[in-house]
């Protein structure tokens, strides 16, 4: 690798400096998970697997870890699938069709995106109670997916706006209906957008805490975030196990991030590369 010009080396140094606290946190989590007890960042005990016992047994009356893990997987995947499909269909309609109230709707979606979701939590709680969806995975999935839609719609609209009208006209002349055109021409061409939105909403749902924590009370329906939180509320917090669970909870995200970063970079670019 060629040496960076001096000005960039300075920038790099500043960036590294700013990143140190975050890096230190990650290092702490790794070390604590492995060595059980750490003073500062220095391990004081030999490494043990004791902190990882939550993988093969239920700890302190909690369900075994595969229960929240599976719940989280289901939650994240279903939320991502709903967001991708609903957002792309809504975005296509907004991008391509003119209907009464289109501008108003676009503005509304933008406002919803800017609205802090947490402020809605009491209303959401009440609505779920009425619908009989409180303390169900279905309920949280619907809430999380709905809250993610405004961003998804705007993102996908940008991608659909970039598709050429002439190509869609050609597809109609070729004999496609609007519906087939959407699936066979438009959707494959916004694939980078779909992947970006999919990855983004998957990560966001995986890390979601407030919604499942508030809207799910049964421990066998809890997600990983609530499971992790439950270790912090004990009288004597075992930081070794907290770190191990945290590490365990992070691994899928790291894997997904490594696989999906190319598409994630696209999310603010919003372009289709032909």
């Amino acid at each position, binding site marked *: 690798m060629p040496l960076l010009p001096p000005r960039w080396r300075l920038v790099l140094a500043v960036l590294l400096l700013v990143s140190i606290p975050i890096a230190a946190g990650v290092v702490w989590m790794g070390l604590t998970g492995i060595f059980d007890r750490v003073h500062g960042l220095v391990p004081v005990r030999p490494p043990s697997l004791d902190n990882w016992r939550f993988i093969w047994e239920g700890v302190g009356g909690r369900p075994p870890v595969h229960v929240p893990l599976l719940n989280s997987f289901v939650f994240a995947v279903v939320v991502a699938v709903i967001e991708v499909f609903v957002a792309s269909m809504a975005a296509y309609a907004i991008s391509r069709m003119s209907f009464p109230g289109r501008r108003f709707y676009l503005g509304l979606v933008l406002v919803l995106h800017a609205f802090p979701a947490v402020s809605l939590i009491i209303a959401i709680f009440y609505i779920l109670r009425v619908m009989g969806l409180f303390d169900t995975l279905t309920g949280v999935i619907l809430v999380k997916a709905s809250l993610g839609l405004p961003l998804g719609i705007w993102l996908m609209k940008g991608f659909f706006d970039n598709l*050429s009208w002439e*190509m869609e006209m*050609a597809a*109609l*002349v*070729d004999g496609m*209906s609007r519906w087939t055109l959407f699936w066979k021409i438009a959707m494959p061409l916004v694939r980078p957008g779909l992947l970006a939105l999919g990855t983004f909403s998957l990560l966001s749902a995986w890390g979601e805490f407030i919604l499942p924590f508030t809207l799910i009370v049964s421990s066998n329906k809890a997600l990983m975030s609530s499971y992790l939180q439950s270790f912090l509320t004990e009288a004597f917090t075992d930081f070794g196990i907290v770190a191990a669970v945290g590490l365990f909870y992070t691994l899928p995200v790291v894997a997904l991030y490594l696989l999906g970063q190319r598409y994630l970079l696209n999310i603010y670019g919003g372009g289709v590369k032909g």
Partner: protein
Amino acid sequence: MKGIAVRLEGLSKYFGRVAALRTLDLDIHAGEMVAFLGPSGCGKTTTLLMVAGIYQPSSGAIYFGERRVEHLHPRDRDVGMVFQSYALYPHLTLLENIAFPLRLKRVPADEVAAKVRQTAELLGIGHVLERRPAHVSGGQQQRAALARALVKEPQVLLLDEPLSNLDANLREEMRYEIRRLHDEFQITTVYEMRWGAFHFGVDMAAPYGTPYYAAHAGTVTLARYEGGYGNAIRIDHGNGIETVYGHSSKLLVTEGQHVEAGQMLGLIGSTGYSTGNHLHFEVTVNGEHADPMAYLLAHGVDIAKRLEAATGGTVIT
């Protein structure tokens, strides 16, 4: 394979309150090639898209043969269209692009393969069928777009400024190609071009010394050299509409003369006029300049047997 007659009756299109096209009447015989020309914004593309079925006309009727089609979905019209940007599907190979219309019609796979192969060979792109549009030249993209339009053996072929994105050599080649295909298949073809490309239109329609004719009856108010138009002929149709035909080198009418619709007015570029075979149309309504949409006919041994300016009907004010 022979095309079908296309008739437009009082065709209009409004976008909100803006008139894109006002009451166009046009008869295109089966198997003819007709060119629309005019400046951008005069309604050429709008007309083409209404014939294709992309736009619904605001009023008026479109007939394919005896069948009224303006309410039909594009897929039920049997129309092939080539767009200015080619509009190939970038995520599919040329083969899949060309096969697309047939697959949508649920043609059996072996028949699709045979027809695609045949059409591609005809257009000289048989060797690049496995590539995607981004990996072939502009000329090959153009040919693929043409193949996609032709493969379903349409009754009407619509070409929207198909050559404007090509360089001069390729344009010459494709011009010839389009002519050859038309002569071979006799598909009714509507061809669209801008003023800037007009030179080509006349080239194709009216080679050296081609006579042109009055579209409507009227009185000749001018028949002499006029500015950049070369020899111009100005005809007052008596209803507030005036047409100017320009760039002719030989005049066959004189000022004050009354002409009938269809009367021969002059010859285009018959003697060495320096700018070549150009022809301008200009239309004024009640003294004000208006954009005309002219159409000229370009098929048959006696090419350019008619060359008309569709004045009153298609004037955009």
